[in-house]
């Protein structure tokens, strides 16, 4: 089943076309990697799928439903979650509280309930704490739950963002350069976590520059260049695609 279908998607910023007439789809349960040189339009694509800004033209179907015109928070309620290339940790909160915000769409206490915390509200709060701790355990941060999020080292902050994003139990998870800045051990842990998430039934779409990781975990790869889709295929197909090699290494790369 196709969980995400992007067709004829275009986004222009003034005279610059960041994403041009893009078509691709993601099947449920897949791990899809989007790669491409800097400025290829990868993050723009993510921002379009999560409705940070509207596309100039084209359509995005999530579970056969058009999501164009929705707001970023409505997208989350539909079951799409994401992490960010530049960390967007809530520095004013503890590690646990960061993940607890991730349970926002799965809980419903409003202002009145918050003012008068009746037993039902307290039960919901306990459930939020429990499931948030489980997500922290998944990424190996359970013992740091009560620390200030801003005190975590970079690698752990990246893991925290993943825990926070999966706390809402999304169907589609978008990871924007999850391995960037991680050391080899942390990258191994990340790969394990991504496999665990896939086994839980979460479809994963990721942007990544670390080719070794991409080739290992992706079922399929979409290659972008200057806003256009250059190629799409299995890691093997992509590795042997002349156009892709040209885009990455330059034309001369082909001659040797």
């Amino acid at each position: 089943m196709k969980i995400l279908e992007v067709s004829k998607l275009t986004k222009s910023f003034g005279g610059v076309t960041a994403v041009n007439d893009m078509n691709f789809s993601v099947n449920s349960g897949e791990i899809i990697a989007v790669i491409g040189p800097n400025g290829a339009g990868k993050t723009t694509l993510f921002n379009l799928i999560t409705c940070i800004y509207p596309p100039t033209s084209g359509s995005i179907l999530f579970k056969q439903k058009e999501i164009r015109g929705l707001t970023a928070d409505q997208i989350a309620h539909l079951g799409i979650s994401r992490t960010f290339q530049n960390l967007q940790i809530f520095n004013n909160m503890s590690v646990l509280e960061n993940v607890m915000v991730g349970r926002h769409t799965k809980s419903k206490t409003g202002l009145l309930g918050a003012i008068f915390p009746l037993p039902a509200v307290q039960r919901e709060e306990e459930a939020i704490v429990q499931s948030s701790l489980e997500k922290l355990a998944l990424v190996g941060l359970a013992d740091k739950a009560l620390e200030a999020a801003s005190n975590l080292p970079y690698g752990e902050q990246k893991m925290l963002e993943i825990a926070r994003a999966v706390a809402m139990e999304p169907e589609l998870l978008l990871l924007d350069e999850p391995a960037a800045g991680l050391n080899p051990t942390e990258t191994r842990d990340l790969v394990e976590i991504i496999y665990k998430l896939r086994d839980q039934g979460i479809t994963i779409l990721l942007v990544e520059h670390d080719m070794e990781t991409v080739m290992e975990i992706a079922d399929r790869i979409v290659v972008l260049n200057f806003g256009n889709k250059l190629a799409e295929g299995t890691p093997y197909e992509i590795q042997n695609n002349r156009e892709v090699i040209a885009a990455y290494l330059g034309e001369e790369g082909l001659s040797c």
Partner: protein
Amino acid sequence: MQDLTRRKRFRHLFILLFTILIFALPLVLNNNYYLSVLVIIGIHSIVVIGLCLLMGYAGQISLGHAGFYGLGAYTSGIITSTYHTSPWVAMLVGAIGTGIVAYTIGIPIFKLKEHYLALATLGLGLIIHIIFVEEVALTGGPSGLTRPIPYLSIGGLELSNDFKYYYLVWLITLLAVIIANNVVHSRVGRALRSIHGSEFAARSLGVDIGKFKLRVFTLSAIYASIAGSLYAHYITFISPSPFGLMTSIQFVVMAVVGGLSSIWGPVFGVAGITVLTEALKTVVPQLIPEAGGEYEIVVYGTILVVIMIFLPEGLISGLANLYEGWRHRKGQADENS
């Protein structure tokens, strides 16, 4: 989780200690002047607690809260003096009315951010103040409401002296603290703080940031309105001057001095600034006999700048952090020796 329960218990213990302090204070300080200062501190604390929910937790600013404070005061004053209804009913009408005004005006205003939002709320405060001054038939204009405003009473007991009023005001302040504490440690409070932390991330997690900004703005306006009603029935006379821009700035300074991201900060901030203002009222005329009220602006400005530079988290958390830092350095020095 054990640590989590311990933290919650600690917060409850703090509220309990605060309650005991409130009840004990008038027994020690039973001098009418001190009591009247404490009543004003309590009333202003209610406004500033609401403002801290907006500023410290949601990260939004308002330079117009004196307007909401005034709306509460004038609604109470006009309704009780003209229609002789119960002050409690008037207070409720004021709170609901102010809430509706804040919500309605908040819809367009919260499309703005930061400096623009500050200017919009400043404009809002000024407009409300101008209405108090110009609508002479309704508000009595610049000279104030001439009809007498009654005292508040509970079951026939008229709260006509400072001692009785002190307990009422601080009971409501305590309630304001408890409600704010509940809100902060809830799903709503986390959503508000997430907006402050990163609007991007908050939205990606499903937080409708416009809705939450609007709600906390409305809640803080209702806090201000209730405080205004309490003020009207305490002084029993109101004129536009205490509800102007200067008061709005004063509230912001109190909030910043106390520490924005704290429920207890506001009470200390208000107490600090109020005591300082009262002290200056006696000291300044002796030093500079021809000084007018404008020196307050200079003092507030200086305090704001000093706090922002040296204790950006406010007096309470700032001092706590300084102490932690000192202990940390001392610990390291001990290890080295």
